[in-house]
């Protein structure tokens, strides 16, 4: 019934071992093709928000999330080809936070690819992050798939360069999710020109996987579940037959289908966020396709954080969400409907009370 059951079982066995050892949130991405020699997997960890208190003290809760994710990723069987960190390594972009986070990530075995988050960027515009992790945006090819990593958390130059008296204040203003002084995220003209040039060289039948921090779709502007030039970016991705966008930032399960593009969000290791439709005072749009994750139980510190095991079969992703203190979820491309769907809960009759958020 499930062609990936053996892999999943192996994986979950190691996850269970990791959990037993007192460790475990990240994402494993597996790409499966007709030729098994081309199958591969990668891990995905995101939104650690390592937060400096003072001296050598950091917020314990967020530290534990990342430590657990890294330890569990290292126990994966089969071993992932590489690991992605999806952005917001630090909370306020401080060297102490990025260093402390980098130290934890350095325990990962194998190649690490990093995505820029707004919490990494707005103190020094990504300068220190770049020293640790490299360019802000780039692409690479791996076993027949073209990967693009975007820095999608840029905003208007006037906001970035002219509005704030200090870099620290700029960072603080962007760090508050619901702060009305914030500014919408965007990829920007320069990077879109780079993206166009990058994609011009790629055959349109090549499966495309795009990593961004913000959603590359417009969900709820008030919390920047939003990328202002998402339509323009989507237009650049449109000529490709199979496109998968995997994003962080939202700290929750989301999935959507726009044209040929499948969107999937990954879990945070730090803390979960409410769905925007639970904020009583705002207009918002959420993908109707998304069956929400269970409401978080705050009494379980790691509840509603987690990791995903992702297959890409014939160029489309399947995410296995491993959720602490909760039933695991599988969101997979359904060739019949042409959309990502939850394997257990997509049918409205199958949904359960904890998925109701208010």
């Amino acid at each position, binding site marked *: 019934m499930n062609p990936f059951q053996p892999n999943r079982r192996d994986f979950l066995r190691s996850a269970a071992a990791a959990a037993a050892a007192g460790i475990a949130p990240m994402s494993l991405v597996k790409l499966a093709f007709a030729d098994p020699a081309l199958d591969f997997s990668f891990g995905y960890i995101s939104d650690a928000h390592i937060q400096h*208190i003072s001296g050598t003290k950091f*917020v314990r*809760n967020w530290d534990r999330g990342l430590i657990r994710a890294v330890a569990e990723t290292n126990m994966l069987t089969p071993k992932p080809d590489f690991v992605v960190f999806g952005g917001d390594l630090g909370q306020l972009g401080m060297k102490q936070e990025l260093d402390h986070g980098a130290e934890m990530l350095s325990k990962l075995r194998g190649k690490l690819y990093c995505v820029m988050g707004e919490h990494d960027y707005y103190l020094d515009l990504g300068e220190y992050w770049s020293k640790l992790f490299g360019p802000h945006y780039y692409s690479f090819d791996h076993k027949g798939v073209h990967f693009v990593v975007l820095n999608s958390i840029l905003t208007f130059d006037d906001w970035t360069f002219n509005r704030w008296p200090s870099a620290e204040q700029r960072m603080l203003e962007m760090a*508050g999710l619901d702060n009305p002084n914030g500014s919408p995220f965007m990829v920007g003209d320069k990077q879109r020109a780079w993206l166009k040039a990058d994609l011009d060289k790629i055959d349109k039948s090549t499966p495309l996987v795009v990593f961004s921090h913000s959603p590359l779709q417009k969900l709820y502007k008030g919390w920047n579940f939003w990328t202002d030039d998402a339509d323009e970016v989507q237009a650049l991705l449109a000529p490709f037959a199979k496109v998968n966008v995997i994003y962080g930032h939202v700290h929750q399960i989301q999935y959507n289908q726009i044209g040929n593009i499948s969107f999937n969000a990954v879990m945070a290791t730090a803390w979960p*966020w409410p769905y925007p439709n639970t904020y*009583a*005072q*705002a207009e918002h749009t959420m993908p109707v396709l998304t069956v929400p994750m269970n409401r978080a139980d705050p009494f379980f510190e790691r509840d509603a954080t987690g990791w995903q095991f992702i297959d890409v079969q014939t160029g489309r992703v399947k995410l296995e969400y491993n959720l602490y203190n909760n039933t695991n979820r599988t969101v997979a491309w359904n060739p019949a409907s042409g959309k990502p769907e939850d394997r257990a809960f997509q049918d409205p009759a199958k949904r359960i009370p904890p998925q109701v958020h*208010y």
Partner: protein
Amino acid sequence: MNKKIAALAVAAAVAFVVSLGADEFTKKDQERWEKEYQSVVQKGRGLFTSGALGTNGVACAQCHPNAANTHPETYPKFQKQLGRVIALREMINWCLQQPLEGKPLALDAPDMIALEAYILHERRGVKLEPGKH
């Protein structure tokens, strides 16, 4: 003369009573009350978004943007994890002590009233559903 004084006294007494009338208030009064309320709501938002409320720099708003997912309209309710019916303020104190690693507030502390005012203000218009999980 006496009659005149008596009449004046009655008139004055009526006027006095009227000025104390419970149902008598002006737009100016309403504006003042709204202003007083909003000042406490704003103080509450300040506390809710502040890293200084606890000891570890974590702010309420980090997990609860716009105080979402606090569902104040469901309190008092049976908080299954504590095994008893509690008020919203007790849950606020739970958060202050756990994720914020701070000290609880007195249940009638001005800061507590301000936090509650902000949480409820962000939830205005939602129907009351005490006891709902």
